[in-house]
């Protein structure tokens, strides 16, 4: 072999150079060890946190909302299981693709999904609720695409359900996802995107109690965001149950009585304020509103000119018409403007300045006293006493009866109506009060407006001999975990400053209204009823018979009543929009409600509270 290669004398040379390799190796390994020390020891805790975040997602466990029952334990609102879809952005690799995919699987607008993903607190690790109430088909579809949808999670949640459908819709209200604006408020601080809150009715008023408290679940996920293991760290606490004062059957009866008409019926127990029924028509199905509505569906509801979402019992403001004469009677007698025997001559009109105010009865009632004026609803009598009293005295008594202010019922957005006075007019209109305006006000027209609930309270106060009890919708709240039941006792709003004799006279007259006055159509063979009709004018000028007038220009019909006359246990206010005269249109409805009540609770005929003597109803509040 030619000796041109490295020979053995070079071998030592060669091997000496190995030292460089050794030193180099040691240096490099030392560097590696240093780097690993830095990663594992110095920055170890930081990376441990990162690895925890990598694998755990904390999922909110929505609490079940409290149940809602009527006074007899009939279920009005409960929860049913449903599927909700959540997305954890941290696990989403390609957001536009996911949005597009979900949009096609769920048949949703991509913008809607996009918006859900971009609202809410908690960063990318907090799952966002994209849709709830998935159909079984949708949920199955998503599950079958599980592997292509990293970060998507289907959770079983409880969904609000109203077994009665539209029954008591305005009272119960509905629920909906907390809005971005609500989330900013302190009241909703413990909530998050996707939480469900009461948006209307008692669902809203008692939301804090009914809502419950959310729990939390730690879910271990793999690199694709698929759930591997879940640990519940904090159980959700169900909301409190509500026991309403209403009777579901009576509620249904009242709603059916209104039928397709617009209007409201309020029935309450004047002795304790329990609202027995509160119907408002037209209504809606809270099941539908508690779902996510499309924009179009929402606009359709809101722009419906019959305003089905409006609770006419608490939010409808109407001139009380002649039902206001009940207040006028008390005011006139107590302010000593008249005595029971004071006679006023009615020729069918009242001349004030150059204007003639007509009585509803052409030709007039002749000479009438207070009793007769109420029985036949003589306008001229009340024009006269109203003129003598002046608007401020009228206003003073109207306020004592609770008009012009909230009744305090547990429903959001209660309206208060108007009790006009010189001060009110100066403030509201920046004008002086004209004496002629007092004449309109005296028969419940002009500026005077009230809500049906206020009128039910007024007639209830009369029935209860001047003691005004705050109307209430909720009897008790029950904590389901502890079984603790917190009763809400009746609350006295005030005592109208009237002598027993005055009240007695008015009650007697109102009984006569039914037996021989304007409301004979409210006469019942089961129970004695006292009441007052009213017709609230909607348009200033009308001629010809009622049936020739277009429906929407017709008068509103009022009837307020109480029964039994001897020991009243129910007070009713009926308002039927554009139904004409109270005596013909409203009085029969009140009678039917009262009869239904008496049939269901015969004990009330003896002045015993509905459902027998219960603890709460037994309390006859003292002042």
């Amino acid at each position: 072999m030619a000796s041109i290669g490295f020979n053995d004398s070079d071998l030592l040379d060669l091997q000496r150079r190995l030292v460089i390799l050794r030193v180099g190796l040691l240096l490099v390994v030392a560097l590696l060890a240093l780097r690993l020390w830095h990663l594992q020891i110095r920055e170890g805790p930081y990376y441990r946190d990162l690895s925890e975040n990598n694998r755990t997602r904390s999922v909110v466990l929505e609490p079940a909302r409290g149940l809602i029952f009527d006074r007899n334990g009939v279920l009005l609102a409960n929860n049913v299981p449903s599927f909700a879809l959540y997305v954890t952005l941290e696990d989403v690799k390609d957001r536009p693709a996911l949005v597009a995919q979900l949009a096609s699987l769920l048949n949703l607008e991509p913008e809607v999904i996009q918006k859900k993903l971009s609202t809410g607190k908690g960063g990318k690790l907090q799952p966002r609720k994209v849709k709830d109430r998935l159909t079984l088909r949708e949920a199955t579809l998503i599950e079958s695409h599980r592997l292509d949808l990293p970060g998507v999670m289907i959770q079983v949640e409880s969904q609000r359900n109203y077994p009665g459908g539209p029954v008591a819709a305005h009272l119960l209200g509905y629920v909906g996802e907390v809005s971005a604006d609500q989330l900013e408020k302190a009241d909703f601080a413990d909530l998050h995107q996707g939480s469900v809150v009461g948006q209307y009715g008692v669902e809203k008023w008692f939301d804090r109690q009914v809502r419950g408290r959310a729990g939390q679940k730690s879910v271990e996920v793999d690199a694709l965001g698929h759930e591997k293991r879940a640990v519940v760290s904090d159980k959700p606490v169900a909301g409190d149950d509500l026991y309403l004062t209403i009777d579901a059957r009576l509620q249904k009866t009242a709603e059916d009585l209104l039928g397709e008409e617009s209007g409201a019926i309020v029935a309450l127990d004047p002795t304790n304020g329990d609202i027995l029924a509160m119907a408002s028509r037209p209504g809606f199905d809270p099941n539908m509103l508690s779902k996510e509505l499309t924009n179009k569906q929402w606009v359709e509801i809101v722009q419906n000119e019959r305003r089905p979402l409006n609770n006419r019992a608490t939010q409808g403001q109407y001139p009380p018409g002649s039902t206001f004469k009940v207040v006028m009677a008390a005011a006139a007698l107590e302010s000593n403007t008249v005595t029971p025997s004071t006679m006023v001559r009615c020729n069918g009109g009242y001349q004030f300045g150059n204007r003639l105010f007509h009585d509803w009865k052409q030709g007039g009632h002749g000479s009438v006293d207070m009793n007769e004026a109420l029985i036949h609803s003589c306008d001229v009598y009340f024009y006269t006493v109203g003129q003598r009293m002046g608007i401020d005295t009228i206003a003073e008594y109207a306020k004592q009866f609770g008009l012009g202010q909230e009744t305090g019922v547990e429903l959001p957005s209660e309206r208060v109506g108007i009790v006009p006075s010189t001060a009110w007019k100066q403030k509201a209109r920046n004008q002086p009060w004209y004496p002629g305006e007092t004449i309109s006000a005296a028969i419940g027209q002009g500026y005077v407006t009230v809500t049906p609930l206020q009128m039910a309270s007024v007639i209830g106060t009369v029935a209860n001999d001047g003691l005004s009890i705050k109307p209430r919708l909720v009897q008790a709240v029950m904590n389901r975990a502890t079984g603790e039941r917190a009763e809400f006792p009746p609350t006295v709003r005030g005592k109208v400053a009237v002598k027993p004799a005055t009240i007695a006279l008015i009650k007697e007259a109102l009984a006569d209204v039914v037996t021989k006055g304007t409301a004979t159509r409210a006469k019942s063979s089961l129970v004695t009823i006292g009441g007052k009709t009213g017709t609230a004018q909607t348009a200033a000028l009308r001629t010809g018979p009622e049936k020739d007038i277009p429906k929407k220009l017709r008068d509103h019909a009022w009837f307020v009543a109480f029964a039994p006359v001897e020991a009243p246990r129910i007070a009713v206010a009926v308002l039927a929009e554009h139904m004409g005269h109270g005596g013909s249109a409203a009085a029969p409805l009140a009678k039917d409600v009262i009869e239904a009540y008496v049939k269901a609770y015969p004990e009330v005929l003896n002045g015993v509270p509905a459902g027998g003597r219960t603890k709460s109803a037994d309390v006859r509040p003292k002042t």
Partner: protein
Amino acid sequence: MMIDRVIDSRGLDSFDLRFMGLIAVILSVGVLSIYSVTHSQDTAFPFYLKQLVWILLGTIAFLVMYLSDYHKIARLAYPTYAVILIMLAVVLVMGKSSRGAQRWIPIGPFAFQPSEFAKLVLVLVLANYYSRVSRAGWLHRVVLPGLIVLPGLLLILKQPDLGSGLSFLAVYAAMLLMVGVRSKTLGVILLLSVMLFPFVWEMVWASLHDYQRERVMAFVDPDYDPGGKGYHALQSRIAIGSGELSGKGLYGGTQSQLKFLPEGHTDFVFAVYAEEWGFVGVLVLLALFIALIWVSLEIAARAKDTLGALLAAGIVAMLCFCVVVNIGMTAGMFPIVGIPLPLVSYGGSATIMTMASLGLLLNVKRRRLTLFY
């Protein structure tokens, strides 16, 4: 024919138990880590069992290389290199692609990766060359061997297999270091490197796949895209870092168990190990590697001839390079270039090649003791 028919008593003496023990322990660490990452996967033939098969084949390769005469093996270096070059060309034409790179030739249910074997063949070729060719002059010392290296290097970079390509350069550099390069020559090489670097870089950059470029970008700027291109690097750092001092325990590595760490049984097996055993375990593994390499260097230093010394040095350099670059890349010191951790990562070609290399190393030790036969 290559296997010695005579195994004398001194031959058995050369069978170094320390050396074998270290190899066995490191292989066990590998199998255990592979088992830990893949045990939950539902496959008919689990990875760890396959790895045991590779180790068995690797043991045969080890024995073959150990029992042959390395002079005879070295004589086959050029033809073998020619065969490897053809295979690398074949890979480019019909190879099996995975993650955008063509590195494998399918053989039945298995896949054979010529670039792994090319590393060992290159060591043989260069050792053979330097032991025969005049040491005089930089042309023979630098340029000609460089021309031998070039076709293999280009074919490998074309796949592209950046890791094996760099291993090639490392072997070449180690050899140059061993035969000694005059400072003037070294200066010229450095100068040329600096001058040519932009062009070479341009070439290499152009030949890279997008994902590789992005890995480099992600390395330069770790926050480049943590969810995407920097994902490997970040998840690997998280795995290692979260192991802290004593680790999360066997099967306790959430990063690897929950698949945040891709390629946990192959190139990133060190991260799996580091997550489960912590800094303590990492030091133990590093110590094992240092010991193995130290023993290997010992063999190189006592080789009876230049061929043996060069073979041993080349093999040690290659192993060192793989260990350092693999651990360095999982720990975020280097960009991710796809080099397996010798004896630990899952993989047939790499395991067999590494064990064959170690067999050859021990062969060099044996020959030192059998001067004549």
